[in-house]
């Protein structure tokens, strides 16, 4: 098969105007209540099917576990074992799996055009052991102060205030587990966040500029430097352009940030993220 970059998000726009008109006429002819019922969806067609559950677990391990954890308890992605997921309707989960979540790191899973696989994954999701999100042990108010005092706001915004070099952390607790947040603060370079690739360029005038990559192609490179200047280069004006494995964010070992303060900062994220 030929694999290409796919844009999964778009729903097919191939339906002609005639089809739309016909569809509307048909819907009206059938009566609107029926139409609304159809929109509500039939639920999971493989509900209670043991084989489907097994297939779904395999698919989950391949496609979901790297972010949501092998047991669904979260990591880079949020926990899927909480009540908000358990209480979600099948069709809502189906829509998220197939379309992804815009402006988030949750991609769409098209499963080679096979709806059945998305339903199998939902069946596996339903089988996860329920847990409640373990709240951070810290004090959010103290965490807020520590967040400011440690200089985090230089690069990170919360609630509209702060820098642009790092991700906005206002809602970070909705997509990261407590443990993942703790680890990310201790050792940011362990995993660079999508869209925050560190880049270093050296101009023909021997100037070295470091920052985050905004975009690049074979001829140009766009970046934000550490003073938040947005710079657009032609590669011909650069001696070198390098992706760095290390994050711009410094590590925060225990000596720099005691465990108690770390817990406080994480608690602060959960506090502001819950609003």
């Amino acid at each position, binding site marked *: *098969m030929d694999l290409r970059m796919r844009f999964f998000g778009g729903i097919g726009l*191939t339906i002609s105007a005639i089809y739309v008109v016909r569809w509307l006429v048909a819907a009206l002819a059938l009566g609107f209540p029926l139409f609304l019922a159809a929109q509500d969806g039939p639920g999971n067609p493989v509900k209670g099917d043991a084989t489907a559950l097994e297939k779904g677990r395999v698919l989950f391990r391949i496609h979901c576990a*790297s972010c949501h954890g092998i047991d669904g308890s979260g990591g880079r992605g949020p926990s899927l074992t909480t009540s908000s997921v358990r209480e979600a309707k099948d069709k809502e989960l189906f829509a998220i799996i197939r379309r992804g979540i815009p402006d988030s790191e949750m991609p769409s899973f098209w499963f080679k055009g096979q709806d059945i696989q998305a339903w199998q994954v939902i069946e596996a999701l339903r089988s996860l052991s329920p847990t409640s999100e373990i709240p951070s042990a810290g004090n959010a108010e103290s965490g807020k102060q520590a967040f400011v005092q440690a200089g985090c706001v230089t690069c990170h915004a919360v609630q509209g205030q702060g820098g642009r070099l790092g991700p906005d952390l206002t809602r970070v607790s909705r997509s990261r587990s407590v443990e993942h947040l703790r680890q990310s603060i201790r050792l940011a370079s362990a995993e660079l966040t999508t869209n925050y690739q560190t880049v270093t360029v050296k101009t023909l005038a021997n100037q070295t500029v470091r920052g985050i990559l905004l975009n690049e*192609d074979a001829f140009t490179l766009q970046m934000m430097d550490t003073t938040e200047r947005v710079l657009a280069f032609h590669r011909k004006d650069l001696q070198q352009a390098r992706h760095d494995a290390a994050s711009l964010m410094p590590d925060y070992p225990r000596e720099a940030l005691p465990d108690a303060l770390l817990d406080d900062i994480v608690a602060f994220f959960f506090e502001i993220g819950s609003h």
Partner: protein
Amino acid sequence: MILVRYLTTLLAMAGSIAVAWSQVSYSDILSAQNTPGDWLTYSGTYNSWRHTTLSDIRPENVHKLAVAWMFQPPASQDRFEATPLVKDGWMYFSAQSNRVFALDARSGRQIWSYVRRLPGSMNLCCGRVNRGLAILGDKLFLATIDAHVVALDAKTGRVMWEVKAADYQKGYTFTGAPLVVKDKVIVGVTGGEYGARGFIDAYFAESGKPAWRFHTIPGPGEPGNETWAGDSWKTGGAPAWLTGSFDPELNLLYWGIGNPGPDHWIADRKGDNLYSNSVVALDPDQGRLTWYFQFTPNDAHDYDSTLIPVLLDADYAGQARKLLAVANRNGFFYLLDRTSGEFLRAKQLTRVTWAKGIDKTGRPIPNPEAVPTATGIDVCPGVLGATNWMSPSFSPVTNLFYLTLHEACRRHFGLPQEFEEGQSFWGGAHQKIPGSPEWGALRAVDPLTGETQWEFRYPHTAFAGVLSTSTGMVFSGDGDGNFFAAEGRSGEILWHLPTGGSICASPMSFAVDGRQHISVASQNALITFALPKDR
């Protein structure tokens, strides 16, 4: 008398001021290299060089190249992947979802369009894409995503005949451009991810009557069937979804064959799995196999070898040879003797971990640790392949072979899977390896040695093909939307245009009104370039 003279003058004038439609004969295609103003078959000529001898556009003036026109029909899911055909100023272009357009090649204005109504729901691995058309006489040939072959009246777009080649509900589709050879139109099927049994079909161009079918997996009792354990041959894939090449002197058709299925689970299909991942040489009149060469026996990584076989003649090891060169998805560049299929040489193109090398007979030395498991293994090249369907080019001016390559390792999972008709049959899955860098490049290699001459890198993988010119240049593009010209010997970039859409198609060249043009598809736009008239 005066009236007749007047009409004659008018008609003569019409020849120069209007685009007049004309037919395409088999001898036109045979001698396509002598009429570079036309582009009559997918790769330009039967040897699949994708090379133009038009010489208006040269290294010293290419910086003046400008957009002459763009064609953007209503956008559709997926994107343009086709190479247009041109005959006497008429352009024929196929788009995804089985749409065909005839255009005035001077202006890009539409003359007619055809659309084939498709089923609402289809199981497809890779979208409703189409890569091009074939033409003979007054007919255009489209191989459809719902597994039909359709002949259209090239003048009007009306359907002249259509035949059902296979059942799309069983996973069979067509995405490639057909190839016309003599009085037949030849098509290869997809379905390697759906447990289809691949085939190459020939139909009589005039009537649509079936001429022959070559099963890419031999049936019981036929040589090669024993290379499939048990009944695995029935669902073994081995599709043929691109366009082949043809040597009229040897009367041999060369066609690349795709991956065996299920893609990543090999325990249930032990054996070499012939003729998956091979190139086959067929007699184009009867469809009989003359020879084959298998690149990747018992493949576990979706290393389709459907890639375009490039035919060239050269002295090799002191002997004049008819050669066949393929840049393969499995990470190696191969050179074969196309008379006999004899293996001559393989050279590694990219990072390779699935094999430890290639032995003297051309057979890979497998790495037993590179077999996909339930927990996943990292393998190079990954499922994208070292290259893919985008066309390479051979330039007789630089004697170099140009290809777009991927450097992308992936994590492959292998899992047993029960076959269900019409459902995808991967036997596992694949994903990106977190933190593993991936990039693309245009690479120039010496086809006789496989040695790299130069490379131009892109930060992302790309699916754009290559056109070479007799003025010593190559044109190609990338996934970021740049279309560019490079000097063919050095790789120096001479010109580029950001098109703003991903280029997943192969460029071509034609002439109209005596001026050379270059066309390439970018996302949902067909862009045609020419030098300004006042050059």
